[in-house]
């Protein structure tokens, strides 16, 4: 029987030098990988195109509702929202994408936060943020920290 994984279980974390902080409060996050393909046509292989794997690149994007992670009273000091991501914009961070479920694989890597935005609507609309992490290097399944 297949074991389905709910999207809400897959949480994105960033390492702050001590612990992995979950991004909060996430409404969605995604990991997108691109593998470039090198094509060659030579006289050694007439009439066909030979393809080889080139470089791999990836991006991680996340969207969420903005919460205060700087005030102890909210109990969210161990989370990362726009206020924390703002302080590490443009720096290299170690990230983790993990469901926390037994038997599932966690992904790790290093990335630079390249985009960060904060949206504040009117009335009862909650403030939201979004960010994009530009991946650097490989994605691994063992914790590098």
């Amino acid at each position: 029987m297949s074991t389905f994984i709910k999207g809400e279980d897959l949480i994105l974390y960033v390492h702050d030098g001590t612990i992995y902080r979950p991004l909060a409060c996430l409404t969605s996050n995604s990991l997108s990988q691109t593998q470039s393909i090198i094509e060659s046509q030579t006289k050694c292989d007439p009439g066909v195109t030979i393809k080889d794997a080139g470089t791999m690149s990836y991006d991680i994007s996340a969207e969420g509702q903005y919460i205060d992670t700087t005030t102890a009273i909210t109990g969210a000091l161990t989370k990362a929202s726009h206020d924390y991501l703002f302080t590490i914009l443009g720096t290299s961070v170690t990230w983790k994408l993990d469901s926390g479920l037994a038997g599932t694989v966690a992904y790790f890597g290093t990335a630079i936060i390249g985009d960060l935005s904060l949206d504040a609507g009117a009335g009862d609309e909650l403030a939201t943020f979004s960010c994009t992490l530009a991946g650097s290097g490989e994605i691994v399944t063992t914790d590098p920290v």
Partner: protein
Amino acid sequence: MIKALPDKYIRKAIFTAVNGIVVNTKTILCYDTKATSQAKDNYIILSTQSNEVDKSVKCGYRWESSILIDIITRYSISGNTGSRLLADDILDKVREVTDNLTLDVASGLTIVTQSQSFPNDLVSETQNEIIYRKLMRIEFLIN
């Protein structure tokens, strides 16, 4: 994880805010679901409540809750049959005092947002009296 159902905490917060308010020199009492037989002609009823689990964020489930508040004023069908004026004034006072509610700390629940809306008035007549009702619905997002 779903937190405790907020219904009783919402009613407590609203009851505390509105019970005994004075409007046009009249003290207005508040009742849950139905008034007692000793109720005066003007009172507030905490009516139907509904809840829905909000799963839109990964930090945890939240409640989308609402409650209907019923403002009731009664007049004799003979002579001066009154108007909606008192009901209007009671509703406006209820709106004012419920504009920024907080739930009992012991509940572990926090109101993230709340909004008020005002459905259509209701008027009904019996053999002896005419009843003017004003309604207000408060919708909450509760964490």
